[in-house]
């Protein structure tokens, strides 16, 4: 009974918690600008990291929505919604000659921290570091921490 009333309250007053979407790598640009347009631009379109990731997985890596949603840790339906919103934003930017700006959104960057199985050090690998081994013992036996 108690659980029922609690869930009822939640349904009535509170939106459901938004799950964080896993993003393997953030976009390596801050945005895109149209050029050669006659009209003056009216503000940017904000493309979220997860929307960028959705476009990348579906249209660049050519995954189906089921696989892509699994990778991002969300349901297929949610993936489809994010993907749709991403396409619409890009279309809007094209038609209305608006800039595209990438913003963080509800993303969590996947695999930021790594654990070395050899010396148990935990570490990050920034994009500027070329090799992907342990910075302490140079071991290749590392795994991402979820």
């Amino acid at each position, binding site marked *: 009974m108690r659980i029922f009333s609690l869930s009822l309250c939640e349904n009535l007053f509170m939106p459901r918690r938004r799950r964080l979407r896993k993003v393997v790598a953030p976009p390596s640009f801050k945005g895109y600008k149209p050029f050669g347009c006659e009209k003056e631009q009216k503000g940017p379109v904000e493309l979220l990291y997860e929307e960028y990731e959705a476009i990348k997985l579906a249209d660049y890596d050519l995954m189906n929505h089921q696989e892509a949603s699994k990778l991002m840790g969300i349901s297929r339906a949610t993936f489809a919604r994010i993907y749709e919103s991403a396409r619409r934003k890009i279309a809007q930017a094209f038609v209305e000659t608006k800039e595209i700006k990438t913003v963080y959104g509800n993303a969590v960057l996947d695999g*930021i921290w790594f654990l070395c199985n050899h*010396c148990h*050090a*935990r*570490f*990050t*690998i*920034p*994009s*500027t*570091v070329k090799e992907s081994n342990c*910075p*302490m*013992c140079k071991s290749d036996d590392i795994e991402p921490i979820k």
Partner: protein
Amino acid sequence: MNTVISSSGKDTNSSFDLRFGRAAWFCLFNEDTRETTFFENEYVNAQGGAGTKTAEKMVELGVQKVISGDFGPKAKEMLEKFNIQMVIIQDESNTVQDIINRINS
């Protein structure tokens, strides 16, 4: 390549400090020339924001790698933004020299 190791004292025999923003000293270690320089943490007794300020200092020094016991959320964010590699070692028994030996071996 410059690495910073959090230290509790001003020489390589001092023990490794597990805190980042509130470590007493820092050891700046140059991996190419193997030189070590020690400098005091001016934010050790700061009221707040010690992690952020220390992280800023790392950026100023042009450090590529920081080794400590843990990083606070703000320091993490800052170091991540400036592509500084963070390494967490949660073993208090190490001296700064031990850590340097581990990097070099």
